[in-house]
């Protein structure tokens, strides 16, 4: 019973791997998940800025973006796949 978190770009170095599982009970919302992931000052600083998400940070749940209003309150459930990456561009 877990939420799967996938890391991209430099988040793989920050979190020491490509993905991890977080028990669903500890990740009821995106905010709770980020609290759990941000277990060192450095990791926390890569995810959060004050009470909100860090600018240029992109989080998608099962391929869909977070809602613009109160994104940290977005509910998560068992089996969800959360992707965390910095904004990238290309062409």
């Amino acid at each position, binding site marked *: 019973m877990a939420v799967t978190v*996938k890391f*991209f*770009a*430099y988040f*793989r170095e920050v979190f020491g791997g490509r993905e991890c599982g977080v028990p669903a009970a500890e990740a009821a919302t995106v905010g709770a998940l980020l609290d759990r992931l941000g277990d060192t000052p450095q990791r926390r600083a890569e995810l959060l800025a004050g009470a909100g*998400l860090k600018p*240029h940070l*992109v*989080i*998608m749940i*099962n*391929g*869909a*973006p*977070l*809602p*613009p209003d109160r*994104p940290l309150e977005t509910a998560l459930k068992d089996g969800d796949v959360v*992707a965390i*990456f*910095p*904004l*990238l*561009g*290309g*062409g």
Partner: protein
Amino acid sequence: MSAAPFGFFGKIIEIDLTGGDARVLPLDTALVADYLGGRGLATRLFYDAVDPQCDPLGPDNVVVIAASPLIGTTAPTSARGHMVFKSPLTGVIGTSNSGGGWGHTFKSAGYDALVIKGKADSPVWIDIAPGKIEVLPAHHLWGQDIHATNDELTSGFEAGSRPRALCIGPGGENLVLYAVVGNDKNRVYGRCGGGAVWGSKNLKAIRVQGKEKIQIHDKERYQSGYDQALYLLRQAPVTKRLMRELGTAGLVELINVINMLPHRNFQDCTHRPEDLERMSGETIAKTILEKAAGCYLCPIGCQRHTRIDGDDGSTQRGEGPEYETVVLMGPDCGIYDLAAITTANYRCNELGIDTISFGGTVACAMELGERGLLGAEKEGGLDLRFGAAAELEKLAVDTAHRRGAGALLAEGSYRLAERCGRADLSMTVKKLELPAYDPRASFTQALGYMTSPSGACHLRGGYAVSLAFFGGTKEIPRFSLLQSPIAIRNMQNTGILQDSLGVCRFTGYAFGSDPWSRMLTGVTGMDFSVFRLEEIENRVASLERLFNVEAGATAADDALPPRFAETPIVVAGEEKMVSEQAQERMRRDYYSVRGWDSEGRPTRALLEDLAIAPRAGRAS
């Protein structure tokens, strides 16, 4: 005609290759005020010089390259040039941009724009330096690839005075409809077949050299914009570190997460993550990358200088692959082999063909082959299947030389699919191959492809994969029919501004118009407020459209291939496609946002509002 002392030299070179005549014409300051430089200025000069009905590969086509008032300053990334011509692939405006150092050096020769007309009897190259414009025989260069030609024309000079060269390779000489013009060695004017237009004119290369300096009107004002720009470039993760670390291929896994990465000629967007990992930006950085580098004046540094070690002990070096190349020559062809993609990329760079259109054309040929739709084409040696990684490099070489199957691939996917009776299997808009973002995964991107002036291009059509794409307070929902027309207009306009300034798209990840406005106004002493810049963006968009209408394009050409309206893909658990009705609604609303009529034609009233004058020398 007024003097033009600040930011530009007030000089246009016009060369008629038919007689080999070169002359220097004054650049009207009013044109700079109305069209800025780069894409805007080149489009206006092109529009005034060309018959929209001309044969793109005939002597009446015209090529214009223009610099901007910022080129010659220290403004970040401001070394880019813009080229405009009538495209032999699409029949509409060909408009292409390139980094490297040529744009900066051309300006340093003391000129603002270059207009090339006519056709030489035999191969020529053009040599430009302060006080010198010569059209010279190029028999010794004809047949050489882009790297060899560049070496031949630019080596043997003292450090600091080394010239820069644009040139075509065999792809352009052999009129491959998506041939590029190479800039330095591995930067290209890539899309729309400008290289074939050069080839049709027997123009092999243009070398430039010089140390002329522009005058800056208000250094303090310029500096205020420059400082702001540099500070912001160093704050945003994408410009501060990610491009240098991962290159554009850092997008591969990300675009897969959002179900937008095409597979097997855009039949679906389904991949095994482990297959994509073998060719991601992260993997490239850990395996084949030798060095990241930037174009002139670029602090971002997305270039990938790479090395491939062969099983036979051989080593090849080159540049790439970029995201578009990875995906279109890779998964879109059912190929997940980084070495095969990279070596084919090297050949495309050397021989001078566009990796996007080449990849899209090969993918189309593979689908035609798998469906048993190749008849007589098989006799030409074209019989491909998805996943044929071992064939890729040879196909690139054969295409550039129009040998065997390459002769069919050289025509692009639309003409190939059409001759097989299945034009619907060409993944193109206006016969230009789609970049590596499936339009079913974003209505905004879909509309960008539909309405791009040059056909399906993410750089001219608008790039929807921005921060607003991924949520947050400024999110533009990617399936919003209501918001997409305004959103894509704004994205297209941002591109017009960047192309007209001669700066890189990636600066847009750090800041918008304001720092550019300050720098431009400081350099020129002219009013380039953000409001004025928006006027210029709208003016250029409608002038490009006007040319396309006069060249014969209609609203029916602003449409996606049927696949995207008929066959859904799964995005975030839901089936998505861009129905005919959705396309019709977005097209109608987009025309309205632009101020065009219901058929997508700029109205006379709009042209007057935007102060778009009739073609020079012709009454309206």
